[in-house]
């Protein structure tokens, strides 16, 4: 029998029982669309976390003091209280590490910012002129501070939008003076808005000032809390990490068997850590949805079994007019596959639509990947074959005379 006739026979048979075919399909539709939507949610959140981490500067390298030092009975000190990193370290990295393009020390503290009758609790970060490049951060207004400002510990700053909204509402911030812990700063620039980061923190709630200013006028310290560096490109971040480690070990005069008193982490490491967590989430969601796909498949098998019994007489008739066992087998198999594939197509469309709607209505990031569509579709086609085969085989083995006599 040729394929066209086979399809025609199966289609005609399904058409005779539209409602049942549709209800059978429903299981597959729900299964496939659930798989696609769930994977889309998982992938979407993974992607958005990655995007945000990348937007922080994908070549960024973070150097922090490490808790190697201990006090008294071996208790380790909290990292932020450690004073092992210095401006000299930052300068050494900048001048000696060939794969590092920019370096910025950082000191930060929380405090109250005041302007006129407004005040707002926020964070001030003391950084160098290169910091904006390292973070891939741009100004929407004004100018960045310069190396001269840093050298002179100038009382200038760049503010995030949240600061403007809270202490200078409705005003042009450039040129205005705000006070941070009583120290006056002149605003020379405004950062472009970034919104919340992957961990829900407001990235615009920040004031950037020269690190020298923050060190001397606010904190009265000489060490730095963190050093940010930028690898020349993403591929060289590992080499850059090694260079930095070596330079710092030399600077800190560590013996070969001494542990590092600092940690060097690349953004890529952070991304991969976070990604693997959200990958787990995706797999979990997909497997829950996958179960519903299997249930849909069992639904097909169930209906096909009922259908074979109910249509025994039809099978007998078909055999009496010349259908071979194989023709019957293929007919029932084709019916099962048509149900699952049609259900699969509708499920894909529905799944993609649902994913989009989730993004529109709940503002959840979703990402429909081609892989998940193909996978869901292939799985459901295989489901059709697998669960359709046994009922079809049963049908094809009927004896024509007995089948005809069946009431």
């Amino acid at each position: 029998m040729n394929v066209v006739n086979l399809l025609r026979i199966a289609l005609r048979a399904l058409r005779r029982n539209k409602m049942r075919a549709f209800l059978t399909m429903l299981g597959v539709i729900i299964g496939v669309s659930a798989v696609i939507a769930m994977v889309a949610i998982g992938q979407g959140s993974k992607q958005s976390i990655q995007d945000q981490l990348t937007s922080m500067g994908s070549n960024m390298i973070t150097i922090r003091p490490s808790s190697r030092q201990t006090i008294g009975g071996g208790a380790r000190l909290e990292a932020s209280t450690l004073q092992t990193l210095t401006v000299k370290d930052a300068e050494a990295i900048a001048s000696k590490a060939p794969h590092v393009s920019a370096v910025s020390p950082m000191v930060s503290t929380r405090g109250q910012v005041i302007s006129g009758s407004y005040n707002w609790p926020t964070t001030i970060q003391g950084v160098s002129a290169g910091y904006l490049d390292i973070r891939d951060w741009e100004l929407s207004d004004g100018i960045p501070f310069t190396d001269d400002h840093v050298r002179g510990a100038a009382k200038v700053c760049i503010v995030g939008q949240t600061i403007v909204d809270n202490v200078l509402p409705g005003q042009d911030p450039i040129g205005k003076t705000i006070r941070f812990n009583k120290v006056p700063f002149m605003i020379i620039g405004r950062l472009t808005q970034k919104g919340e980061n992957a961990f829900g923190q407001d990235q615009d709630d920040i004031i950037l000032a020269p690190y020298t200013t923050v060190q001397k006028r606010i904190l009265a310290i000489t060490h730095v809390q963190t050093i940010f560096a930028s690898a020349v490109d993403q591929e060289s971040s590992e080499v850059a990490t090694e260079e930095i480690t070596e330079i710092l070990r030399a600077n800190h005069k560590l013996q070969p068997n001494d542990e590092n008193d600092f940690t060097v982490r690349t953004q890529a490491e952070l991304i991969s850590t976070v990604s693997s967590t959200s990958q787990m989430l995706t797999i979990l969601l997909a497997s829950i949805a996958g179960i519903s796909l299997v249930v849909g498949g069992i639904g097909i098998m169930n209906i096909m079994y009922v259908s074979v019994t109910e249509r025994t007489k039809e099978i007998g008739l078909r055999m009496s007019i010349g259908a071979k066992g194989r023709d019957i087998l293929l007919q029932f198999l084709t019916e099962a596959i048509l149900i699952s594939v049609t259900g699969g197509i509708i499920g894909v469309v529905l799944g993609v639509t649902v994913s989009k709607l989730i993004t529109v209505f709940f503002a959840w990031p979703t990402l429909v990947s081609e892989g998940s569509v193909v996978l869901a579709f292939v799985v459901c086609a295989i489901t059709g074959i697998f669960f359709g085969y046994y009922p079809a085989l049963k049908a094809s083995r009927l004896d024509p005379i007995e089948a005809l006599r069946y009431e």
Partner: protein
Amino acid sequence: MNKIVDIRDLRREFVMGDVVVKALNGISFSVEAGEFVTIMGSSGSGKTTLLNILGCLDKPTSGTYLLDGIEVGTLSRDELATLRNQKIGFVFQSYNLLPRTSALENVELPLMYNPSIGAKERHERAKQALEAVRLSDRIHHLPNQLSGGQQQRVAIARALVNNPVMILADEATGNLDTKTSYDIMSLMQELNHQGKTIVFVTHEPDIAAFSSRTITLRDGKIISDRQNTNVRSARDMLEALQEPK
């Protein structure tokens, strides 16, 4: 003459536990092309069993069966299916039309299993077959929109469509009233006059009177095999019925 059916010492036994039912117990006869044979006999005499073997749905326990010159006994299940598809047209007592399927599609069905026939030819031949049973105006009707007689005519069209060498009917008028039975028999006679070989199982002697030959079975054996000298015309009988009394 051209023998369509030639059977020799045909036996069919059913084993039911310890009991062996001899449904056919040594039957021999042949049917020439163009004959209209009725098979009669009381219930359980083996008529259906014989017809199933003639129609290649069942195989004899022993004996030989030549259908249109082909030795059926040695064929496989698939070869039997092909034979049924191309040489036999079945008509059943309960019509056996596919429900919710138009007359045309029902008639097309046997051609669906014949790979050498394309969609266009299938369509044409199904229409012609429906025309031959005078149902051209009902081709898109569903079985439940047709009377019993009309449904049986669709079934006859389905039996004709593959242009078989022989039409086999098992109590094809069993579910119909006298008038409709005569109508079906007049159609059968018409087909027979056009040259179709027909083997028709029936209980009723007045139906057998429309055939050219009657074979009577009892307990799986032939007890009589007579040529019918006085073949009655079903059309005349039908007209006589319709005349006002």
